[in-house]
């Protein structure tokens, strides 16, 4: 979208030239990326260390959030336009079996992709850490649920999670969630009757969204545009930790894309970053934490190749960029002959994890979700179409009001033919090769999408719904959770980082990201990313 409209055009108001983006002297730790992973590491270390955080994207002005919301509603803006994504900076290419819409799947800027995310935050299940042993496929993580359990609890406090302990299928937890769960919706009550009839259990779902004021942030006020923007700040995003890190003394430099990591054989020595004035700077530090998300993290390592590391930094194993995974969406939707009260809020309040741990070599773990936002939003419908006045109102009344839908996420296995590499034919605004995505999913995942559809269909049929759409094996897509591309392994031949998320090759370099996940499970990844980030911060602190 060009700059023709104030509400849609320019990116940010701040004057690029007035901001000091020079390197910080005597930095202890340089964190690359200010999404939740990087921001949590920075916040955790900032009190006792000199921390500098470099992010490729801008610092967004909170005063612009309503205008971003307007972009989310207005049809002339694509999703990436809401947070200024796309263009030369974010160019990428696809060469795989399936198209991967990368710029719908991330945001660059302080806060990272959580600016856009939905904010559903579950812990992985115990078997997710031992897929090979427990299910006979995939890989075991070198850590288990018990290792991460205290960090999960801490991550829930940091993000602010509203949840309840009514889910019999969730892994063991030691304490209640920091906030009470959101109450079930009216449509949940309709689903509940059908599910009871079918012997399907419903339970609450943890939300990184304030059900009451928390951490000086407002309770949810029901704007209903959580994805892609919460104007109230009730949905957690990583600006919370980036700002807190700054209050504790960290320096956060925006619009500072790191071009490469300078290094010798066993240490990273500096992050070379570009600034909007066309300059390049070198940020030296004792330790480095790479937290650029699941695609840009392997890309940065590949861009940092050298004589020591001709195939890319930290890539002695050859696995940098390999095993790219996402969760697959499975869904069914339709209409009832009664009101279903959708689209008041932008998040869901009930889920079903009953089938998750039935996973084996043939069937992947999957979870089911009961939507509160099925069918079209009337305001968005009103802005398209060639009618107005009474005819428009009639169309809105016909189109809104009786929709129901279920969604679900399915695990895909790590495969070496699903990977991220560099596209040598195409460069970004700085002349660096763009990421090239080769995404492949495999039969187990597709079979499981079908299995999820079966259950979803049975629930909707029990409800008496007329089924209107099915996101099955042919129509499935990614949930925007990029994982696996710098996998964790005890064996330096088989993975990029060790169990502490420190690279096998370089003593002072950690990776905080879902890129370290050896397998993905079927739970949204960010609570696990946050738990791992807190654990990384502890390890950095121990060693430096």
């Amino acid at each position, binding site marked *: 979208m060009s700059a023709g*409209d104030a509400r849609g055009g320019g990116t940010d108001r701040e004057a690029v030239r007035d901001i000091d983006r020079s390197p910080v002297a005597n930095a202890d730790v340089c964190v690359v990326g200010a999404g939740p992973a990087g921001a949590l590491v920075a916040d955790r270390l900032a009190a006792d260390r000199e921390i500098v955080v470099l992010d490729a994207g801008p610092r967004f002005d909170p005063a*612009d959030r309503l205008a971003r919301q307007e972009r989310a509603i207005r049809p002339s803006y694509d999703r990436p336009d809401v947070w200024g994504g796309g263009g030369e900076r974010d160019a990428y290419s696809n060469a795989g079996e399936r198209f991967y819409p990368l710029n719908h799947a991330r945001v660059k800027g302080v806060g990272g992709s959580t600016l856009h995310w939905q904010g559903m935050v579950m812990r992985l299940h115990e078997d997710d850490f031992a897929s090979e042993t427990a299910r006979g496929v995939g890989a075991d993580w070198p850590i288990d649920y018990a290792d991460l359990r205290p960090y999960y609890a801490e991550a829930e406090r940091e993000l602010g999670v509203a949840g309840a302990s009514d889910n019999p299928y969730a892994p063991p937890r030691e304490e209640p969630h920091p906030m009470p769960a959101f109450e079930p919706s009216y449509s949940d009550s309709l689903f509940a009757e059908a599910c009871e009839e079918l012997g399907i259990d419903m339970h609450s779902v943890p939300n990184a969204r304030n059900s009451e004021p928390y951490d000086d942030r407002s309770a949810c006020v029901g704007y209903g545009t959580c994805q892609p923007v919460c104007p109230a700040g009730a949905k957690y995003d990583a600006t919370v930790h980036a700002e807190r890190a700054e209050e504790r003394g960290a320096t956060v430099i925006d619009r500072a894309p790191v071009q490469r990591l300078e290094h010798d054989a066993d240490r990273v020595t500096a992050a070379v970053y570009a600034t909007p004035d066309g300059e390049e700077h070198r940020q030296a530090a004792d330790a480095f934490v790479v937290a650029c998300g699941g695609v840009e993290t392997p890309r940065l390592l590949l861009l940092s190749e050298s004589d020591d590391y001709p195939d890319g930094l930290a890539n002695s194993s050859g696995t940098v960029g390999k095993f790219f995974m996402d969760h697959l969406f499975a869904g069914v939707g339709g209409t009832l002959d009664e009101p279903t009260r959708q689209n008041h809020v932008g998040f869901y309040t009930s889920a079903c994890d009953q089938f998750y741990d039935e996973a084996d070599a043939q069937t992947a773990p999957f979870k089911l979700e009961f939507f*509160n936002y099925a069918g079209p939003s009337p305001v968005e419908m009103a802005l398209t179409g060639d*009618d107005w006045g009474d005819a428009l109102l009639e169309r809105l009344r016909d189109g809104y009001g009786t929709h129901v839908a279920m969604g679900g996420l399915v695990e895909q296995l790590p495969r070496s033919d699903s990977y991220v590499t560099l596209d040598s034919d195409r460069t970004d605004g700085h002349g660096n090769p763009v990421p090239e995505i080769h995404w492949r999913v495999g039969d187990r995942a597709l079979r499981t999408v079908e299995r999820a559809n079966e259950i979803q269909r049975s629930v909707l049929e029990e409800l008496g719904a007329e089924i209107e759409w099915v996101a099955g094996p042919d129509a499935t897509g990614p949930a925007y959770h990029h994982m696996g591309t710098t996998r964790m392994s005890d064996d330096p031949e088989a993975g990029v980082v060790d169990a502490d998320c420190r690279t096998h090759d370089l003593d002072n370099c950690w990776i905080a990201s879902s890129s370290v996940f050896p397998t993905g499970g079927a739970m949204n990844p960010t609570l696990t990313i946050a738990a791992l980030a807190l654990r990384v911060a502890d390890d950095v602190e121990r060693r430096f």
Partner: protein
Amino acid sequence: MELTRRDAVAALAAVGATGGVALAARRTSDGPGAGGDAADGGEGGDSLPDEAVVRASMTAVATVLYPSEIDGVEAFVGGFLDGRLDGSTHAEGVRAAVGELDAAARSWHGAPVADLTERDRDRLLREVGADTAAEDPDGTLAERVRYYVVNELLLGLYASPTGGELVGLENPQGHPGGTESYRRGPR
């Protein structure tokens, strides 16, 4: 159903108003009410219509766009525009599009938008092509009228609780209507 200025305030709370919501730089010389002097702005270099014309035209168009069961359109649109016609380039786009629509009204129907009958206003919008155009702030006249006039007004109405209620959704997307309505059953 009666629309009030309070609805306009609610609509503004939803989609934003004066106070820093615009995403591009503001023009310092172009404050609210400073309609007619922006000779350097506007589409095609035409001078922008003055504030009264913008308000009267938008209200007149709203009576066509809004369903007949809605009353109080003038107060609602007035209140909504109080917020939207700030010093932003968006406000300038609204003024420019209204100016062009008004010029079309004069040349095709011999009178400004506000003086046309409701039927002629409806015809004018369709003649301009705003019914079939997809909104685009940088597009053709049809696309700009769709963006700055038609969708501007529809957004104001249907992101407000009264507009939502017409459809059976008292807490529409864009309106911070709390966390109770999603739990309530139909009335």
